[in-house]
């Protein structure tokens, strides 16, 4: 998704008026080397200084610039959390933040570089929108939509270089409006980011056990598509959330916050990182460790479904 962001940036450089892309010494990781060369006036590297990154971005935004900031997800969100609160949330200066390599993909580097907390933390800041795209084409759509959006947006990029593509054909992406990738009447699975593919794989496994699962790409986590959650809650016997994030505060929590308002709402099972920093390791190792695999999740769903 990171390389795709770089390609998208090149296009934006040609088409978006008063664009400024700001990084914190990560131009190569963000795929921005070509952009930097082609549009030096629209590119600003603030060095390894994320608090300053958000402050400068907000200052430029206040003067009418379309600002995109990017660095690795922990530094893009946690390091400058209060600058995000005051400048983007409280003051409503509008910028688009792209968090690179969120979730577990940098697990071999240790948990300083993983990011399992960003959604939970940013979700509690008013006037922020949070998007977790399912694949690289959706990441591009998210960036484009963010520039037209009224609030600041955090775009959370997950997955490695060879990320599975969910969409083959073009489709309509709208912030706050989830996409039902597969209809189903028994179980509703809500997922975001790379876990959308996992959810789709689960639905195939579940089908073999005669469980008809709906798969929803909840690309926007804030504001959550409450209408879709309500609709699914009415027809499904079980709600499932899958996320590459701490189970506290992320997509599952956002879905649960909708469900509690519904009378006799179905049970929800949360799949995500179980509020811990485990031993480090590569992406697949960590997904296995945190049970974020189609096999494990499907087994759990089947077992839970039988109990209902």
């Amino acid at each position, binding site marked *: 998704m990171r390389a795709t962001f770089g390609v998208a940036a090149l296009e934006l450089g040609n088409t978006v008026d*008063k664009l*400024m892309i700001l990084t914190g010494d990560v131009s190569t990781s963000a795929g921005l080397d070509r952009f930097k060369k082609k549009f030096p*006036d629209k590119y*600003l590297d*603030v*060095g390894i*200084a994320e*608090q*300053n990154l*958000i*402050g*400068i*971005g*907000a*200052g*430029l*935004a*206040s*003067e*009418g*610039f379309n600002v995109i900031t990017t660095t690795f997800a922990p530094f893009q969100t946690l390091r400058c959390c*209060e*600058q995000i609160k*005051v*400048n983007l949330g*409280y*003051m409503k200066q509008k910028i688009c933040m792209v968090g690179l390599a969120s979730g577990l993909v940098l697990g071999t580097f240790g948990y300083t570089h993983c990011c399992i907390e960003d959604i939970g933390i940013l979700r509690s800041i008013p006037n922020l929108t949070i998007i977790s795209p399912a694949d690289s084409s959706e990441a591009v759509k998210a960036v484009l939509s963010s520039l037209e959006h009224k609030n600041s947006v955090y775009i959370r990029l997950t997955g490695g270089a060879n990320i599975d593509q969910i969409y083959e054909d073009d489709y309509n992406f709208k912030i706050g409006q989830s996409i039902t990738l597969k209809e189903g009447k028994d179980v509703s699975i809500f997922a975001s980011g790379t876990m959308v593919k996992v959810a789709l794989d689960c639905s195939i496994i579940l089908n073999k056990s005669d469980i008809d699962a709906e798969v929803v790409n909840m690309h926007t986590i804030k504001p959550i598509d409450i209408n879709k959650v309500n609709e699914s809650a009415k027809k499904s016997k079980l709600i499932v959330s899958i996320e590459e994030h701490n189970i506290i505060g992320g997509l599952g929590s956002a879905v649960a916050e909708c469900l509690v308002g519904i009378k006799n709402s179905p049970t929800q099972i949360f799949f995500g990182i179980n509020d811990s920093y485990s031993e480090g390791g590569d992406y697949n190792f960590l997904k296995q460790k945190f049970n974020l695999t189609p096999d494990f999740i499907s087994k759990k769903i089947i077992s839970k479904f039988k109990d209902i």
Partner: protein
Amino acid sequence: MENKNEITKIKKLAKEIRKNILTMSLAAGANSSHFGGSLSTVELLATLYNSVLKFDVSNPLWKDRDRFILSKGHACLGYYSVLCEKGFFPKEDLNSFEKNGSFLLGHPVINKKKGIEFSNGSLGMGLSLGIGVALAAKKKNKSYKTFVLIGDGECNEGSVWEASMSAAHFKLNNLTAILDRNNLQQTGSNEEIMSTKELGDKWRSFNWDVKEIDGHDIAQILAAFNYVSEKPKLILANTIKGKGFSFSENNNDWHHKIMTKKQYDDALKELNVPK
């Protein structure tokens, strides 16, 4: 002669600001207010708004206006006072200070029509905003200038130094930071809490052009503002916290303190202005 008249005018404005500070401090009642750190900024703000900043009170969103950011947002008493004196809002609004629903809270809330460019209060954020605003001027070929008022206690924040380093790196000669060096912070002197010794050297080593002055001497303040540099400029203003009233000068009890009616009356007498 002209300079003398200008100085007299600024001194008069400074007196009005101090009077307004007393009004708001009393209005705050038990909520209390940041009295001392506001009083140290009075001459700096009076000079800035009288003689330096370009603005049009009838067109507060004028694109070519100079931008001012109060990074040490707790010192808003002086800021609101000078905005009021320059006609951004009427005097009676000062009595709403820290009242429910007021636009004049204990730290500035963005309100461009009233002359408040940004929300501030959490220390160490204003200079980064100023860098963004100054960069925007360069990108848009605009001649407006950006001024950011910071505190010496605020220089404890690491984010101040991230911003400081980058302003010089980006060659922002359209940016002036004013450092209110009153030597005191919330619970003690800089020296006791976190030494900010040789502040001028620190900023110089970050490649700023540093002008050190007496922050209550208007002629010196004017000269520092008028000085043109090819680098970002830091006016290191040596000031007195609580300046203007015998009970509050260099008395850190007045960092944030409730003002009684008697103290208010005594202070007005000392200021020698009509009620």
